[in-house]
């Protein structure tokens, strides 16, 4: 897999590999529940990435199996996990201080929608009969130095999930830095002249085709611009 434009879309595995490769060595990272969890499979040992789980731990290791399962050592998805050397435990207020205080380098989240201003919608479909649950989503959205989103670019009905304005209930405003999708990687710039979105690379369609499907002005990669 290359990070240049390609004619085939990226699989979920490709995406996880791409995100993992983009995380700077030595980073402190929180991986959200679901698709983002897969990123850990592609982090190389020499990247020395330390994983945070918001239920009170730094230095989280891979999922636990068999005899290693300990119901008092779980991740934010309540899956049994393991402990890396150099780990530490802390209580919930200290754990969220790590996030809210901006100490994590990267947080990787799933999403329903991301706006061209970097607004994130990932906690509620807004369906009137749904039982709401937010967990740490809003803290994760506003806490990390960089928030990476992983999702498909289009919903099942073909409408784009990167939009001018989110129609789903918001998780956080102007918080997303990058969006990794099956059809390409989008960089959100929160500049002083207002936000802008640049397509870093396209997959499965051309950059112009991607731009045509979106309802906001997309900056294309330099070689295509």
């Amino acid at each position, binding site marked *: 897999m290359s990070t240049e434009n390609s004619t085939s879309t990226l699989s979920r595995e490709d995406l996880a590999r791409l995100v993992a490769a983009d995380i700077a060595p030595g980073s402190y990272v929180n991986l959200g529940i679901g698709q983002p969890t897969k990123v850990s499979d592609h982090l190389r040992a020499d990247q020395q990435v330390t994983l945070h789980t918001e*239920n009170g731990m730094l230095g989280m290791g891979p999922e636990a199996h068999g005899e290693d399962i*300990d119901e008092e050592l779980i991740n934010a998805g309540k899956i049994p996990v393991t402990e890396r050397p150099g780990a530490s*435990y802390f*209580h919930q*207020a200290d754990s*969220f201080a790590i996030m*809210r205080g901006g100490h994590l380098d990267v947080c990787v989240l799933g999403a329903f929608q991301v706006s061209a201003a970097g607004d994130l919608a990932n906690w*509620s479909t807004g369906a009137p009969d749904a*039982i709401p649950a937010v967990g740490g989503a809003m803290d994760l959205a506003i*806490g990390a130095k960089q928030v990476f989103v992983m999702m498909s670019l289009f919903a099942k009905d073909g409408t784009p999930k990167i939009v001018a304005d989110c129609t789903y209930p918001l998780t956080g405003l102007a918080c997303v830095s990058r969006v990794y999708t099956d059809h390409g990687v989008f960089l959100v710039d929160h500049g002083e002249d207002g936000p802008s979105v640049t397509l870093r690379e396209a997959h499965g369609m051309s950059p112009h085709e991607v731009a045509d499907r979106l309802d906001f002005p997309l900056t294309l990669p330099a070689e295509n611009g």
Partner: protein
Amino acid sequence: MTEFVDTAAEAVARVQDGSTVLLGGFGNAGQPMELIDALLESGTTGLTVVSNNAGQGDRGLALLIKERRVRKVICSFPRQSDSWHFDEAYRAGDIELELVPQGNLAERLRAAGAGIGAFFTPTGYGTTLAEGKETREIDGRHYVLEHPIRGDVALIKAHTADDAGNLLYRKTARNFGPVMATAAAHTVVQVQQRVPVGSIDPEHVVTPGIYVDTVTALGADPARPEGQPENHPQEAKHA
């Protein structure tokens, strides 16, 4: 001063009809199952429960909700794949829900324990969970004003207590315990073991005894047989 009682039933005697109860745990980890069982036995009802979740499966808080002892839940993540008792009570209109982002929940509990009157948090700004709340821009960032959450009683789980009430926890079961212990008028703790004063290194104490009112030591946890000592805190091994 910390009192030690022999049974979970005695430990939860402080909880009254209509009490606000801070309930430790993230999922089942750190949830004081035996104290909750005693609360079920006691018949106490009309409770407001503050907890991260609203119960899983058929244990602990889920059973309190099933039995309709809980009038209101203040939590961050009620809906889960196995939260069927909460789901049913909620859809039946039998339980009130105040949904709070998890970090704000933790910080509001901390504020209660630390004597902070209110605080400006960036979490939730611009979302429906901040609707109607005071907001302010400070140094170019937007914040929401949040207020403390105090409990009449906290029910939490720790691993070890010494005779002075100092607590050690275990791994991610620590979660809300240390914060809730500070935020309630009366803090009740179930521990696996009680050790003499002096058994815990003062550098390692997580919750000082000043926050601990009642402790009951349950002995060995069936889920953690003695054959796994390497998973216990260091002091536990020395005691």
